[in-house]
């Protein structure tokens, strides 16, 4: 078999391994009792490199890629997509390593270089995490004053507002509202109860009102119908009287409570 054919075969097998990874049920390994929680694919890869005691500057890619895929399967990782992406990258590097090198070896660029750089950067960040964790624990082990007796009258303090806070708020809104400007038009059912409540509150305040005050000029048909039915209902209940002085004139609505002079 030629080199190219061998590489192609490897790649086929690798692709199959990736495609299988999430679907295949995890083998229940007896020794996997306490699954460590990984913060991400780089965390997993880094701990693999540590466990396998390999040199980070000279990673045996084929071996590490295989182990990496195995761990993804065993751990049944939830964010599998991100882990699989790194797995695919490892296999790509492996393929590049398998390809015969052309030209001078000095000009050959190690396909692992970018990965190593990222791993080192990630490891550096993990060091900071350790520091933060230690300091956070230290602080958590000491309490601040918790009991705050109520003070007398509290005067409103001046406001501290930043544009950043406002932008953040908009950010949050846009995250939950996908299409903020598009409203879906749905058929509205009549809201007679709402209209009744509104008329009642209006005539509780004033002796009379006119149709034009109750229904806006550009009211939708359902609003006009709701109001009409509400007025008829209230008239039937004897709470108000309707009058139209002349044809096409605005309907007048009068408060009609018993015991009051007309």
């Amino acid at each position, binding site marked *: 078999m030629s080199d190219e054919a061998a590489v192609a075969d490897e790649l086929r097998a690798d692709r199959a391994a990736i495609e299988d990874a999430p679907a295949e049920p995890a083998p229940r390994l007896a020794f996997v009792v306490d699954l460590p929680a990984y913060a991400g*694919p780089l965390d997993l890869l880094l701990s693999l490199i540590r466990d396998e005691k390999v040199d980070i500057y000279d990673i045996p890619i084929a071996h590490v890629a295989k182990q990496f895929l195995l761990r993804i399967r065993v751990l049944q990782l939830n964010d599998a997509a*991100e882990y699989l*992406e*790194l797995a695919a*990258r490892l296999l790509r590097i492996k393929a590049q390593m398998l390809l015969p090198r052309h030209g001078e070896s000095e000009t050959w660029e190690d396909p692992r270089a970018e990965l190593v750089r990222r791993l080192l950067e990630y490891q550096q960040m993990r060091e900071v995490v350790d520091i933060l964790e230690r300091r956070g624990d230290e602080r958590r082990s000491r*309490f*601040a*004053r*918790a*009991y705050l*007796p109520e*003070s007398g009258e509290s*005067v*409103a*303090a*001046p*406001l*501290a*507002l*930043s*544009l950043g*806070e*406002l*932008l*953040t*708020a*908009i*950010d*949050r*809104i*846009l*995250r*939950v*509202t996908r299409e*903020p*400007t598009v409203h879906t038009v749905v058929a509205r059912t009549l*809201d007679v109860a*709402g*209209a009744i409540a*509104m008329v009642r509150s209006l005539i509780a305040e004033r002796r009379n009102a006119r149709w034009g005050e109750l*229904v*806006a*000029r*550009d*009211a*939708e048909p359902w*609003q006009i119908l*709701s*109001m009409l039915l509400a007025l008829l209902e209230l008239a039937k209940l004897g709470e108000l009287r309707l009058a139209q002085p002349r044809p096409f004139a605005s309907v007048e609505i009068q408060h009609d409570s018993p015991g009051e002079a007309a």
Partner: protein
Amino acid sequence: MIPLVKLLEAALFASPRPIPVEELSALAPEASPAEISAALDALREHYDVDGHGVELAEIGGGWQILTRAEYTEAIERAQLAARPQRLSAAALETLAIIAYRQPIGRTEIEEIRGVAVGSILKSLQERALIDVVGRAEGLGRPLLYGTTPLFLEQFALRHLEELPRADELAIALRPAPQPL
């Protein structure tokens, strides 16, 4: 101070409410009630004799450390001067919606936020960050809200157009292309 007094001091300081004496006993199960009581006396005396800014008080069956009354006024004055209040996330969101959609009615704001905003509108209005700017047509003629000049002042904006456009924000918030 002896260890028991120090423990009581730390617990009284850390507790969100006054502590009844039985609960103080739970702190040091090996100490007798008489020892707890003596320790409380020692702490009170220490604060009084040594001249501290705080004192130990038993109020309504619970023990608490209180700031001495003579300092409270100075403290409140300094706090007020140096620690301006912040708006809650809910209030900021409501304010942001009004800034971008004004004039806007309560129902529309509630549709976007998914929760009632009545009391928030009221407090934003009290702080003069928003105001009623008109009434919508239609049933019930709901009130419409808009931002005030003080709003611009607070955010150091010359005019509303200085806010980033909503479509710019939407682009910024699109899921980024996956790394790796």
